[in-house]
């Protein structure tokens, strides 16, 4: 709860008090939302957990960069390269402020959540894990926080332990202390579940792990678009997210790591920018974060992500949070009233996601019917097959919300579900 409370108090520094949150005004920043997707059907975009839409300022930032500032970073003596470098490093600073990290060098640009986790698995895991060591994940992880550790398991002989969840979709932390053996080298868990919407008690998890001297990685992909995150208050060792779910472009994401952790890690990829000096006998690596940013980075993406974050932080975040809570409550209440619908994931603390199944109708068919009504949702296993196995369903339908969604869009979802029943029941 404490991170949520902090989010409510957060305002962008220097921006002054934000205007009260007004969803209609915010929607005007997202031109894509205003379109007919099928004949006579206006787009209702409820697939935000897959990727969010982008505000105009983000598209403008991409255009402006390529139109006026494009050059390689950290290399040129010329003015354009200086400008590109300033903008790129400026984006790093914005992200540092957004996460309330201590230093810019603790922010590493990566492609996204997946690459960030793989980077830690390689840079930390391969460096420090030995056969018999243990990594703890949870039962509700995205595949991107399972597979990299399994690959290490097969390579190094480490073991993977799993924090179980209950039938509401909440982690059972009672057993966590037993999982934290002397051989446990990392706890890597999701902050907010993309399949269920559960907000995990990550402060508590960090405390328990740190009490045993175990570092913690938090997958914040589904948290940062909804709540303010303070990595220092959380005391996370690593915090990772994707830009494209946070109103930014695809192909750019963030690994936050405490400086001493990043410094201890081995590089991920070798090449330009990540080195100090190279001879055929010996290479000295660059300092963090550059040690992990080999090759020409996604400069425009980083800059546009910085812009997305600035846009987000200028909003009345307490208002955003209240709006999103109201949406989730409304959606949950209305879906419960649809005959045959069962909500998957009923944790007390939830954000942004309603997963559900409908008796007698496969989620894939729900998705197609909804699409023809203009309502975009995701159906499938949401890259979280262990969650599906827990609830003994092959797949779910998932509506996921962003700050620009409205109560009338939830009405459209419910009306479209009536159509599903008409066809199948």
């Amino acid at each position, binding site marked *: 709860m404490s991170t949520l409370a902090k989010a409510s108090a957060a305002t962008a520094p220097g921006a002054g008090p934000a205007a009260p949150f007004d969803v209609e005004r915010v929607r005007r920043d997202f031109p894509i939302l205003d379109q007919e997707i099928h004949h006579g059907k206006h787009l209702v975009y409820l697939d935000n957990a897959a990727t969010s839409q982008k505000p105009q300022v983000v598209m403008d930032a991409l255009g402006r960069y390529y139109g006026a500032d494009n050059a390689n970073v950290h290399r040129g003596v010329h003015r354009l390269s200086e400008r590109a470098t300033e903008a790129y490093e400026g984006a790093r600073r914005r992200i540092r402020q957004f996460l309330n990290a201590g230093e810019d060098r603790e922010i590493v640009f990566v492609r996204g959540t997946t690459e960030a986790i793989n980077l830690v698995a390689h840079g930390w895991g391969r460096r420090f894990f030995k056969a018999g060591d243990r990594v703890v994940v949870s039962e509700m992880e995205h595949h991107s926080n399972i597979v990299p550790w399994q690959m290490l398991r097969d390579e190094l002989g480490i073991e993977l332990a799993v924090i179980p969840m209950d039938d509401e979709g909440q982690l059972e932390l009672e057993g966590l202390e037993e999982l934290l053996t002397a051989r446990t080298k990392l706890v890597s868990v999701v902050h907010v579940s993309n399949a269920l919407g559960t907000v995990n008690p990550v402060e508590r998890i960090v405390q328990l792990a740190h009490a045993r001297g175990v570092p913690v990685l938090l997958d914040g992909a589904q948290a940062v678009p909804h709540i303010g995150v303070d990595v220092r208050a959380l005391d996370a060792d690593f915090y990772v997210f994707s830009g494209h779910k946070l109103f930014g472009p695809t192909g750019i994401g963030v690994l936050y790591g405490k400086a001493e952790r990043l410094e201890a890690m081995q590089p991920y990829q070798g090449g330009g920018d990540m080195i100090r000096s190279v001879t055929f006998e010996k290479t000295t690596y660059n300092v963090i974060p550059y040690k992990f940013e080999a090759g020409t980075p996604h400069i425009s993406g980083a800059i546009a992500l910085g812009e997305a974050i600035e846009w987000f932080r200028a909003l009345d975040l307490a208002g955003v949070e209240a709006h999103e809570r109201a949406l989730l409550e409304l959606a949950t209440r209305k879906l419960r009233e649809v005959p045959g619908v069962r909500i998957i994931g009923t944790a007390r603390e939830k954000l942004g996601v309603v997963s559900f199944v409908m008796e007698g*109708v496969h989620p894939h*068919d729900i998705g*197609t019917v909804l699409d023809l009504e203009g309502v975009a949702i995701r159906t499938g*296993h949401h890259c979280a097959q262990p969650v*599906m196995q827990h609830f003994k369903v092959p797949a779910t339908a998932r509506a996921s919300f962003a700050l620009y969604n409205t109560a009338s869009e939830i009405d459209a979802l419910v009306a479209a579900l009536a159509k599903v029943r008409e066809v*199948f029941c």
Partner: protein
Amino acid sequence: MSDLRDLYQEVILDHSKKPRNYRRMEDSCSRAEGFNPLCGDQLVLFVKVASGIIQDISFEGSGCAISKASASMMTGAVKGKTLEEADRVFEHFHKMVTGQPGDPFDAEILGKLAVFSGVCEFPARVKCASLAWHTLKAALKGEGQQVTTE
């Protein structure tokens, strides 16, 4: 525009709710599993072939309406056919569901399977419609294969 009823025709809904030849076959001479990782469709297909003719065919599994109906109608369409005939039906079926809306198809060869002609307007559902057929191909090629639509 693509309409709901183009895809979910009555015949398809009927087969998805009451799939034909939906049973295990203990004495099948070959079987194969089909899996569509995108939506979790899963089926096991059992086939009995003698003298180059599909004597019996059945399936079990779970999946969306399209994949279930397709499996159900496929079993009906190929039972009693020679392997070459079954292959030919598959070819025509595959062409129909991956073609452009309005493309001509051979109604004589496809028969009732023509109800799947609307699938081509729903690219995300093509794999659902063809899963059973790919699985049949695998079953006829050899024992115990697993096919996926990916």
